[in-house]
């Protein structure tokens, strides 16, 4: 397969990635090849959504998006150290993946987010969105440790929590090609100097001397690489390939 002509990822981010800004009605065909889910526009923004000043997602409903955004904002908050998951576009990452690689998690999101809200109401007297940051954290700690009122979560709340945490990290620290890690926020947080195709001995030395500057490039800024496609993405399994394989 041949790599379609791709507009640089950075140009794309500059163009459409600004949450809450006026919608850029980006014709999909101009941005990316048709089958290329990974490089699809940062979010399909309708003029209605734009008018309301809110990003409209492809798969998450508006209320799911609101809850999820509030949750990831606590998992990796914006704070004195810098921007967090919300700023990095983690929601865009998850939303897009729910239509392909993470499609099998779609139902778990719907059920889990509703349960999160129900549990907040049942235990703290208000829905999750109405709680302040401290209370949101304490609700999330219960969800993480599985110490929630029985019957509210279908199955196990810990599982839901670690699923969202895992996907949040993917969106935060994965290649911006997939919709998250906007402006390389995640990589900068880790002090990761960036994807390079060549790292010479001199580069390694300068890294060791704390002098290697982050290059802020997506893997797919390199024209040579064929991109993951929607069709193939759909067969994806969400597993950690880092397990025990050598």
């Amino acid at each position: 397969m041949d790599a379609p002509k791709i507009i640089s990822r950075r140009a794309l981010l500059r163009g459409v990635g600004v949450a809450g800004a006026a919608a850029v009605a980006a014709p999909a065909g101009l941005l990316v090849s048709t089958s290329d889910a990974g490089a699809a526009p940062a979010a399909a923004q309708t003029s209605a959504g734009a008018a309301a000043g809110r990003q409209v997602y492809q798969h998450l409903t508006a209320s799911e998006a609101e809850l999820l955004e509030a949750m990831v904002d606590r998992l990796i908050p914006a704070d004195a150290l810098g921007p967090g998951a919300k700023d990095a576009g983690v929601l865009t990452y998850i939303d897009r993946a729910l239509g392909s690689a993470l499609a099998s998690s779609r139902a778990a999101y719907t059920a889990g987010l509703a349960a999160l809200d129900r549990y907040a109401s049942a235990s703290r007297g208000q829905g999750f969105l109405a709680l302040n940051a401290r209370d949101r954290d304490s609700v999330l700690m219960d969800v993480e440790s599985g110490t929630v009122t029985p019957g509210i979560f279908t199955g196990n709340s810990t599982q839901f929590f670690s699923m969202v945490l895992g996907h949040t990290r993917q969106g935060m620290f994965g290649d911006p090609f997939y919709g998250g890690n906007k402006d390389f926020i995640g990589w900068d947080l880790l002090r990761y100097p960036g994807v390079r195709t060549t790292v010479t001995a001199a580069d390694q030395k300068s890294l060791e001397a704390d002098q290697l500057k982050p290059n802020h490039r997506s893997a797919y800024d390199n024209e040579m690489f064929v991109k993951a496609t929607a069709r193939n993405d759909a067969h994806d399994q969400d597993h950690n390939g880092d397990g025990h394989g050598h």
Partner: protein
Amino acid sequence: MATNLKGTDVVVIGLGAAGGVAVLPLAQAGIDVIGLEAGGVVTRRDFAPDEIRNNVRGWPFLSSHKTNQEAPTFRATASAAAVRGGHPMMNAVGGTSMHYWAQHWRLNPWDFKVVSETKRRYGANRIPKGSTVEDWPFGYDEIEPYYDKIEYELGVSGQAGNINGTIDARGNPFEGPRKRAYPMPPLRWTAFHEKMAAAATRLGWHPFPGPAAINSRSYQNRSGCMYHGFCNTGGCHVEAKNSTAVTTIPRAQATGKLKVVTGATVTEINVDSQGLASGVTYVMNGETFFQPAKVVLVASFTYENSRLLLLSKSTAYPKGLSNNHGQVGRHYFSHHQGAPVTALFPFDIKAWYGLPAQGVAVDNFADDNFDHASYDFIGGCNLWAMSDRRPISASGMNTLGLAPNWGSQWKQFIRENADRTHSSYNQKTTLPYEDNFLDLDPTVKDPLGLPVIRITGEFKDNERKIAQFSQDKMEQWYREAGAIQVTRGPVGGAMGASTHAYGGTRMGDNPETNVVNRWGMSHEVPNLGVLGGSVMGTSGARNPTHTMQALAWRTADHIAKEWKNIVKG
């Protein structure tokens, strides 16, 4: 109805690390070879440095189809219920040699003589109870020329430690004697590797750079390594990783004697009225074909090797091909590469770039390189400090009780420590046992309706004791290098599906206990050969592929030399 195809001399099932090597000496000998490969073709343009695709999502469109659909089930013992596991191998021309780590070790001489050497030095009662381990039918000297062949034909970088008996302190003093040095110097070290090596030297150990099937400089007109950090489960964008897809397979194709057929899933090896292999049946795009051949070589990785034999039932072989002695699936073991040790250092390791085949090894505690008189196990571990770090996996680091797993405190922790941990797994001697085996799962099937392999196996006392011992040594090494915290994983239970899977069609002189003879040819079916880890009866304390490839070359050489005797039968 199967469509009958035109016959050929040799059909090879699977063009991975092992099958992809065997095709070259065959083709060079003028033998017509058809390579049937279930996967397709991938090129360097498919190897983006993309952690989500390669590591998180496990190669969505390149590998996962066939191997995942036929992932073995596993259970610790015959009384436990088997559960479905994963299967990390690749389906493509080049097989798993496309995206493996390419640490490329020879076994040590002891690994070929575990039984006789243990008896000689410590007495017969030191062979662990229930183990079915045997000496190999030959020693290290016999395989040395083939190790050498692989190192030069594919390209292996490393530092020799023993050339014809002369020890070179820069290399592994415990390695078996080699005829000549590696064709390339070792991969470079980072400042952290230097630090680990210095720590090992202070402890009185002998650190050396590990060998890799990766170019440390340009070789055979392919580039040297770019150290970009996406080698783990990623293919090489500059073809510096010496997969069979860029070395032996294209060279065999260039002779005009190898025909590669992709998208061909073999479902059965067929036999004629005399019980000889007559060819193979394969499925491509829902259509069935019969490919006749004078010799059949099975090279489809350990699980599929046993599965294909067990599935190929006939009047002559009612329990599966080459299984009249009931040995197919026996002497199985997953290499013990668990029991990890993780350390936290008070400084950045600078491991963002580099690869798992680059690093410092210590062999002092492997094999029989130390006196076991005061220990209650045989064998040991190779200690290995490598480079491997990518952002998502770094963000998942164990916070070692120093921080929660999310929130502002975690953010602070990860900012400081993402590049400050190091983990090691350490390859350990693993033995075969009476009650560890492969068979066909009675209920779980692949999409073609064929049963998947079921693994029944657990690590026994000998493996668990080595694991504990290796963790002690690794912790000592990390602490000497300045680690401020060290944690250990569990020492091992059930054997899941492994990237290092051995046995099932073991090699040996005795047909009562082995499926293939010393040449890798079936004791029962003279024109059937088996390639890969399934023929290996011991693991040593290091990765298996070099040995599989040396054996594959040797089997192919044997077939070429003995062609008239093998096909006349």
